[in-house]
């Protein structure tokens, strides 16, 4: 009886702890949403409370100042390009290393994952120089290729781990049936690895969309700069009010938030599958 009672209390404490963390996780977002709906004077009068009246002027103004449609387009092109290229290249390496008789495969795999230890911050100037020498500074392909290269190590690692669990006999059977390498890779392995691929794609989408340093340096002040660069510039302008910045922030974070909420189930099952070791 006593034990059951304490278990009950434990349960309440547990839920209480979870609620506290959930509030901490959500409050900054709510604060920003609420701020973005206030007028400038409304925010000055009462920065913390709920707005007396709701205004969407800040969103209109943010769209105008930041040339939002163009920034959104730039972010979509570079993120999707980098994501597709990175996952494809990682898939090919993972297949070669785990499923082909390929001498030196281990060395290739090691080389790719070792590049994980080269952070973009450490090599940012020579990286910028290299992109400049390739004539890709301020161009979509420059950022796309850089994204692909930086997404490669983790992608290769995850997919190799996943492909490895597919029994070799399955591959051999398909090969005996006359299936070529690409058929095996895209018709047999890819469907099996869908959860891992989905999780990887979402992971890449999130960091590429959200990255600041690479687009800041590669795209700089060009018209091809991404949304995050635009947001960082907006917050640096001295005549910008908190409600206006907040509106810009909400627009910047909304696409990823939507993608996450839509693909939440795939992400979770992919994450579950990815660690199935």
């Amino acid at each position, binding site marked *: 009886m006593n034990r059951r009672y304490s278990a009950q209390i*434990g349960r309440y404490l*547990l*839920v209480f702890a*979870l609620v506290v*963390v*959930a509030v*901490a*996780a959500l409050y*900054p977002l709510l*604060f920003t949403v609420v701020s973005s709906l206030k007028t400038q004077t409304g925010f000055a009068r009462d*920065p913390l409370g709920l707005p007396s009246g709701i205004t969407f002027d800040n969103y209109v103004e943010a769209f105008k100042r930041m040339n939002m449609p163009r920034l959104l387009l730039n972010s979509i092109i570079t993120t999707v390009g980098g994501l597709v290229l990175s996952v494809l*290249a990682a898939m090919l390496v993972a297949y*070669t290393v785990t499923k*082909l*008789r*390929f*001498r030196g*495969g281990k060395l290739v*795999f*090691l*080389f*790719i*994952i070792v590049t994980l*230890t*080269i*952070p973009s*911050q*450490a*090599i*940012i*100037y*020579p*990286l910028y120089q*290299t992109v400049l020498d390739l004539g890709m500074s301020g161009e979509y392909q420059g950022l796309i290729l850089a994204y*692909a*290269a*930086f997404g*490669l190590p983790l992608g290769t*690692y995850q997919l190799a781990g996943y492909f*490895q*669990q597919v029994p070799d006999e399955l591959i*051999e059977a398909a090969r005996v049936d006359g299936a070529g390498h690409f058929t095996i890779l895209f018709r047999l392995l890819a469907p099996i690895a869908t959860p891992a691929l989905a999780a990887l794609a979402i992971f890449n989408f999130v960091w590429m*969309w*959200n990255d*600041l*340093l690479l687009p800041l340096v590669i795209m700089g002040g060009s018209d091809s700069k991404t949304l995050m660069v635009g*947001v*960082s510039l907006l917050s640096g302008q001295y005549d910008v009010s*908190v409600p206006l*910045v*907040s509106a810009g*922030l909400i627009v910047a*974070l909304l696409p*990823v938030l939507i993608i*996450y909420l839509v693909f939440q189930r795939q992400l979770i099952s992919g*994450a*579950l599958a990815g*660690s*199935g*070791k």
Partner: protein
Amino acid sequence: MSISTAPAAEPAAATTPPAPVRRTRRFRHAREWWFGALLVLPALALAFTFKLVPLVRGVTTSFESSSGFGDSSFAGFDNYTRMFDDPMVLASFRNALLVVATLPVWIVVPLVLAVLIHQRAPGWKFFRAVYFIPYTIAPIVVGIMFRQILAPDGPINALLRTVGLEPLALEWLNGRNSALFSLVAVALWSFFGLGVMTYLAGLATIPDEVLEAAYLDGAGFWRRLFSVVVPMLRPTVAYWSVLCASGVLIWLFPLIYALTQGGPGDATMLPEYLVFLTTFQFLDRGYGSAIGIALFVFVALISVFSVRHMFKEGTRKPR
């Protein structure tokens, strides 16, 4: 790479003498090798062009003295010796060590939350979904957001004042110690969801009965956590530790950019921000590259274990 894993020999091969068989097989192996080489080429080209080449160029630039827009000249180890006398550089690496010292918090907090969610508390699906939301928000956006939250008269301090903790209502981003603390706390806010998700994935691979026995057993929560759950979760804990160890410094860049710009003084100056500042603000490329190489070595030393672990995992044959 033994013979037995070779594809089934074609029927024709069975009737021909051994020597040609070996030749066709060798020919097939050679063809498969070239095909494999072709497949890994794009990845190698990417890693080579955007990682290795810049790294090598960074090393060469670090031996040059090149300021402003003028020509550069060979400077030997000058840039490196200069670092040891530069209080800003020393402070940045000291701060980096302080940040790395918080790693246990990064590893334990998501673990505890994941275990709590995993106990299927009412609304656990909601919590699981909500905890991941901060991670989806761009760090630069998080930084600008928290500039307002942590402002001297922002909501955090308002809360502290209403609950009677007036002395704790600091100028969070303006104190020597509180600035670095705030920076790491914001970073943790931004990344803990990824950890929770990773741990939940790991927990899902452990049979429910095993965990249930551990959860319901009389032993206290913390004891159960460290004596039952952690040993079973070893691979996941290792993976997440690896990710944090190699990532924690890198994740901070956009937050520093938005929140403190390295200040006050050098309180939140970290190597990655200093590289950026030296190179693009002070236009001292040689020196910036040298600091960058030092950062690379620092990160590489921390993540040697991660790479070894990943290599073993990735090349291990399934049992």
